[in-house]
């Protein structure tokens, strides 16, 4: 497989989604978190936000710069990348969430 922007974006997309869902799932496996035991929440947040970060970067990069992807697909990726970024700014990256 060639290392180019398209392939790297696709690997980033896949990896980001898997890390994000792993982050949601690990909360159930380690939980529940209480006021004195915060490890499940901390680990889950690290995975969720890391996954979402990789995912949003890949989507926006693929939408703007990747070559060899159809025009409609690129626009959809870009729009959803921006929507996810806004969701993260407004909801997920608030401390305590």
């Amino acid at each position, binding site marked *: 497989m060639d290392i180019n922007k398209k392939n790297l974006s696709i690997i980033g997309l*896949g990896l980001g989604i*898997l890390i*994000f869902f792993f982050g949601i799932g690990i909360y159930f496996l380690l939980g*529940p978190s209480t*006021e004195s035991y915060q490890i499940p929440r901390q680990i889950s947040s690290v995975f*969720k936000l890391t996954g979402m970060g990789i995912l949003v970067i890949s989507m926006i990069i693929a939408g703007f710069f990747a070559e060899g992807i159809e025009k409609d697909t690129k626009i*959809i990726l870009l729009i959803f990348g921006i929507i996810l970024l806004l969701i993260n700014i407004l909801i997920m990256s608030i401390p305590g969430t």
Partner: protein
Amino acid sequence: MLGLKNKDLVMIGVIIGIALLFIGAIINNVFPSSTEEMIGYKVSSFLKMMGLGFLTCSMIIGGIIVDDIDKNLKILLLIFGLIILLIYSVGSEQLKWDIGSNLVSDNTSLEEASYEYRPTGYGTPGFELIFAVFAIISVFIFWKIIKKT
């Protein structure tokens, strides 16, 4: 890899994803959880989430890289994958298992509160439905905008 094409890999991803989702649901029913023993619930929820992860991942990647399927189907695969992702991005806040001190009282132990307030995906009744409707409406609006440009 093993002579498999992109289409086959995406298909295997979808199969694994849906299979994990249903295996998780079966485990939850075969090993019911209680206030004393919640391992069934934990394993089942983890498997279900990983299944959804594989499914979403396969749908979105399939919507970008698979060449030998109809173009409309490809776009549909991508959009539905992104809708699932959007729903779970917003819904992940509802899927937290946080037991605050206000939930534990003299009459309720930590174990009982953990069992009582475990997220089942239906913490707020029908929360997925509300986000799904919003997501579908937004997709249609964006689709109209894309078609015009």
